[in-house]
């Protein structure tokens, strides 16, 4: 039985440290086995992953953009994932930093998530208190307890609470935390493609990710993403290619074009300007096909 199932009066009579210890023990027992396996598998990835908690879509998108642009992989990608406790915990275990939003629409699960991240996240936990949304008395109390636990367990250096009207302070805190952790942001590479080529691109992205450690963002034909991406690989396989060629004008960063079979008309290839055109050598993609471009982006392989 979790301590949270106790009523408020009973909880008030118990020593918060005992409650915290009980919770910690339960979580540790549940997660120990899976954490060891997953931790080993994801050790490399954890250097560049940030857990971004639940809030309104607009706020989350702003912070997401900032972190992505700085080269970090942000999880979870889909808001639906917040309903899945196991997934949330797994993401936190992978993360270098965990960011949570508290206030108003906050559900108990956000407070749960803060506790988990204090326990499982390899780096700091940052809590952003949304100023225009009042906490309920219960939420306020829970947050106070969590912070009390942080102080008592000597983890204050791994915890930040930001109370601000705008996001600037939060973003600055995140930058400081991430830079202070001494991790070099990974190289971001976006892949632009038409829907028809999506299945192929998925395997290409995985192969490049595995070989280089780059963070690969699947832009599709999301022009806003293509604009903001400093490095873009335009993939043209079996798709008609017209929309892809139009999308090229949205990229002023470093770019290259990977042209795969079937052969494309020369007049269409001439529209691929601003970067090298790399031809896929075989029926199946090999990292060697794009090696010159990856080297240009700093890959040492």
């Amino acid at each position: 039985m979790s301590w949270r199932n106790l009523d408020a009066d009973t909880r008030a009579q118990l020593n918060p440290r005992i409650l915290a210890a009980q919770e910690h023990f339960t979580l540790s027992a549940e997660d120990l086995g899976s954490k060891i396996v997953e931790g080993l598998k994801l050790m490399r990835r954890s250097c560049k992953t940030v857990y971004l908690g639940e809030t309104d879509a607009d706020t989350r998108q702003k912070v997401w953009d900032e972190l992505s642009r700085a080269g970090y992989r942000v999880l979870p990608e889909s808001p639906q994932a917040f309903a899945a406790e196991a997934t949330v915990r797994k993401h936190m275990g992978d993360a270098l930093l965990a960011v949570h939003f508290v206030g108003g629409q906050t559900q108990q699960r956000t407070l749960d998530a803060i506790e988990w991240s204090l326990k499982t996240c390899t780096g700091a936990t940052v809590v952003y208190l949304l100023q225009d949304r009042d906490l309920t008395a219960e939420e306020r109390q829970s947050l106070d307890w969590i912070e009390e636990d942080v102080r008592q367990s000597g983890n204050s250096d791994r915890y930040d609470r930001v109370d601000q009207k705008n996001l600037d302070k939060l973003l600055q805190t995140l930058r400081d935390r991430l830079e202070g952790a001494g991790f070099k942001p990974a190289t971001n590479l976006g892949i632009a493609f038409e829907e028809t080529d999506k299945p192929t691109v998925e395997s290409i992205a995985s192969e490049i990710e595995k070989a280089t450690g780059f963070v690969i963002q699947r832009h599709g034909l999301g022009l806003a993403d293509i604009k903001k991406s400093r490095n873009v690989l335009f993939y043209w396989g079996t798709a008609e290619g017209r929309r892809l060629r139009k999308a090229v004008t949205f990229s002023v960063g470093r770019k290259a074009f990977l042209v795969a079979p079937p052969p494309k008309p020369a007049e269409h290839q001439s529209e691929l300007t601003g970067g090298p055109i790399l031809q896929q050598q075989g029926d199946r993609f090999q990292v060697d096909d794009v090696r010159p471009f990856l080297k240009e982006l700093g890959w040492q392989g």
Partner: protein
Amino acid sequence: MAGMTNPFRGLLPFEREHAALFFGRDKEIQDVIAQLERRRLLAVTGVSGSGKSSLVLAGAIPMLEAGQSERLGIARVATMKPRGGPLAELARSLSSALGRNITVETLTRTTYGLVDAVKPLPPGESLLIVVDQFEEIFPYRRDRFKTDAGSEADRFVTLLLRAAEQNEVPVYGILTMRSDFIGSCAIFRGLPEALNGGHYLVPRMTRHQLQDAIESPLEVIGASIHPGVVQRLLNECDDEPDHLPVLQHLLRRMFEDGSFTGRPPQ
């Protein structure tokens, strides 16, 4: 900053070719496209310097040309300004967009002359006519521009209205106009009714959007700006309704003066 293209436009609007450097209006671009899909004729209005032309020219048009609207498909775009003669400019811009010669005579043969002149369009394509600075139309209502069929301005507006109300050919229209001229549109028969259904008033940029407009153009060309400077600029903009042109001008000058730092590629 030697060798880098200045990503800021200063007092000039962003044009179609600057789409890759146009930031901070993602939501408004989507709003404009969504409204256009519903109404076919849309007036985008705002005070002078609010960025309405940039929003349409460097924001919505490139998206539509790239096929980002399911309803419009891939849009061929005819962009014009009324100055120089609205009918002649319309004929010129249509010829350029469709790659065939369209004359004023063809357009003015009937009130559906525009529709007749542009059909057929290839499957999956649409035609978008963008009349930038629509307020320039008003002088063309004077007597010296009148014929038996009415003034040049009346004939031009009628062509647009007829094209927007039919369903045979996918023709869409966007008018950008200073908001202080919106009342004057009532002098054209049918135009107020059309604009009541499709009108988008360009909102002021939020603090976050402004930050995006400052930082992202630098980001994509591999330069950066000190966060403290960004905050200072944003604070200065907070209470100024006409901050956008001033901010763009300042950024352009700052870039020329080498106030930003280059960054090694990641």
